[in-house]
Each structure stands twice: as structure tokens, then as C-alpha cells.
């Protein structure tokens, strides 16, 4: 059994240290070691987007990142989206538009949408739909999700 490796990284703005095996994904460490249960495991092979996090500004599937790869880097999970003042506008608009039903894909959609708005504050509907093509939702049919994201962009 390979030895555990010590990793230091910034997670949701806080310096964090943990031990991991090289085979452990970032998703596994976030949920099982660090307790960030908001990041969901869906397909665990890069198709569904439920495990999306922002790694140094880039949207990634945390199931396809080894935890050892994040040494010295910065990760934002769904838990880092809201502030002490309240919900992030995306979270608020998802509620207002009822952009979720079972809610399992929602953390991934919100993190993905935040990554979009961080680099393109005023996307077109086409741009929102293309950006969210890597996130699967089996309940909503996507329309309400797209409307919620566009509403945040407008306000």
C-alpha cells in the first residue's frame, strides 16, 4: 500500500491540510476526509458534472482530479459560494425559478454557472446552454436552470 501524502491547499479560502493516497480523487477527499458533502458523486467518470468544483479559476470534474494534484492550489466548492451576508445570487435565483426538483445536480450546476459568470457576466442563452452542456439534470428539462442563470446575469 503506497504511503499517504501530505497535501496543503486552499479550500473555500481557508488553508487546509490533509493526508491522501495517490489513488484518491479530489471528490473523495472533499466528501469523505474534509466533510464537504455538498459536492455530489454522480457518474464518477466525468459525464454528469455533479461533482464540479472550481480549481484555480477553472471548472473541473473533481472525480477526474487526483487529490495529490491540488498541492498548493485553490479549490472552491458549493460550500464556498454563499457569503456570511446570505445566499449567492445564483442560489437565490435557482430558488425563485424553481430550477431544481430532486436537487442532486444543483451544486454542480451552481458551481458551473458561477464559473461562467466569473468570466462572462452577460452570457447569451446559447452561451449558457453550451456552458452547461457538461452538467446533467434528469428532472427539470434545463429550461428553468437556464432562466435562473440568465436572470442573475440580467440583475
Amino acid at each position: 500500500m503506497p504511503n499517504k501524502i501530505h497535501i496543503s491547499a486552499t479550500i473555500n479560502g481557508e488553508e487546509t491540510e490533509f493526508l491522501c493516497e495517490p489513488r484518491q480523487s479530489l471528490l473523495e477527499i472533499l466528501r469523505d476526509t474534509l466533510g464537504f458533502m455538498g459536492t455530489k458523486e454522480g457518474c464518477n467518470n466525468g459525464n454528469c458534472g455533479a461533482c464540479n468544483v472550481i480549481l484555480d479559476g477553472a471548472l473541473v470534474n473533481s472525480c477526474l482530479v487526483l487529490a495529490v494534484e491540488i498541492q498548493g492550489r485553490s479549490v472552491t466548492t458549493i460550500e464556498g459560494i454563499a457569503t456570511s451576508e446570505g445566499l449567492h445570487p445564483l442560489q437565490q435565483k435557482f430558488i425563485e425559478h424553481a430550477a431544481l426538483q430532486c436537487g442532486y445536480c444543483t451544486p454542480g450546476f451552481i458551481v458551473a454557472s458561477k464559473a461562467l459568470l466569473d468570466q462572462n457576466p452577460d452570457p447569451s442563452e446559447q452561451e449558457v446552454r453550451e456552458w452547461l452542456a457538461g452538467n446533467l439534470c434528469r428532472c427539470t428539462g434545463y429550461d428553468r436552470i437556464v432562466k435562473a442563470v440568465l436572470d442573475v446575469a440580467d440583475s
Partner: protein
Amino acid sequence: MQAFDYIAPKNVDEAVSLLASQNGNAKILAGGTDLIVQLREGRRKAGLVIDVKHIPELTQIAHDENGLRIGAAAACHDICANPIVQRKYLGLVDGIHLIGGVQIQSRASVGGNLCNASPAADSIPALIVHEAVCNIAGPNGRRTLPVEEFCIAPGQNALQAGEFLVSINVPTPKEKFGAGYLRFIPRNEMDIAVVGAGASIVLDDDKKHFVSARIALGAVAPTPLFASSAGDFLAGKDLTRANIKEAARLAQAIARPITDLRGTVEHRKHLCAVLVERALDKAIERAGGQHAQ
């Protein structure tokens, strides 16, 4: 997932020694969008994973008088966002941009797409028509290999024991060069090509004749295909619809697709001609040529 050790070498020589020390038991990690899934599902085995993203040569996207050099581990997003790539290598952007959604683009590399050697890989026909060349390092030093010779069977590439892909060189396009890649899928996004087609052309000064052309196909043979006879046919010919259609027919003739869940032999053969014609039209438009009548 199976247990393995992890190491992130800082230069190519170190990576070569590590690979050599493992007798085939080590795997190269770039973006991980194929490898991590394959390791998790047990389709590949590794005692050691060598992360090459800390080697500057492997993540570079550089341009000089020799053309564009893409590190084998450079992420698709970073390649497509490069201003020189956006200006001069539009055929590459067409192919690379199609690899997965945003989350995959952030991590997946063109080098990985090439090494994974899928017959349907979108970047490979695009690389072939841009005359890209692989830079390979191994225990016997460095060597180069044209991209069209890199894939040898589904999932198998031409790398010998202890070798790995360092970078891909894409020559600076000539004057009046244009290239394009497109694929057919039965939906708008997020799918694997039923057929893919790439084309590049160079026009003469009056933009009425082809100086040269290259055509490549994906998903119609065990490896991506370089349709050299179809491209060679166009060299010196007039820019006419009849000549474009004849080149498309010649490309179609070398395709040897199979019937599978994505399409039938007949459908794929039909698509070859349609897509090659459209890829040529796209390339001509980008070279500044008139739409052929």
C-alpha cells in the same frame, strides 16, 4: 480505485528515467480525463502514475519561426484561448473545441487525445490536415513522427516501451492557407463523432486554383485516416465544385467504416463525402477564396 504511487517530475529526462525504471508498470498522467477513468474501471493498470504537468515543455503553448508547439499536457481550453491559435490554426480550434464540455476542456489535453488513439478522436484529423508532427522522448533519445503515423489500432499508438509524447509541432500556415474540421453527431453537443472530416488547402495568388490540399477522416477506420490521394488530386486543380466533389469522392473511397450503435456502413460512407465537401468549403472560405460554383 486500484492503488498506485504518484510522482511529478520537473523535466523530461527525469520522466524518461522514471518510465524506464518501471518496466511498463507506469502510466503518464496529463489531464486525466481518460486515464483516471480507465484506472478506476480497471481497463488500465499502473503501479506508478507520472504526472507530467510540472514539466514546462509538456504544458507550453509557444509560437516561433518553426510554428506552433503544443505541450502534450497543455489543456484544450488553454490551447483554444491562445490568440495565435485563434488567428492561424482554426482547423485545430474546430477539432479541439469539440472534446467534451467546459469541465473536460479545462483538463483534457490534445496529447492525451492523441495517445488514447480513438478512431473517433476529434483533434486527430485536424492535426493531420495542419501537418502536425509528434515530438517523442524515450530511453534512446528524441524522435519525431507525423501525426498520421501515430495511431496504429484502436487505443494503440506508435510509442515504444519507455517512450512518451512530449509535444506536438504544427508548422506556420502558408499564405492563403485555410483549414476546417467538422463532425456529424445526432445531437447538438457532447457526443462521439459518427464521422469526422478535416481539410486544409493552400490557394494560389489569384485564389482560383489549389496549390495543395490535405484531407483526413475520423471514425471510419480502426485509426484516423489521412486521405492523401484525395488531397493530392486537388493540387494544381481549378477551384470548382466538380473538383471539390471529386476530392470528397476519393476520400470516401478509402473509408472502411463498420456498423455499430452510432451508425451504419452506408450512413458513414455517405457522411464522408458530405463532410469532406463541407470541410473543404470551410477551408476555402478561411483561405479567402470564393465559394466554388
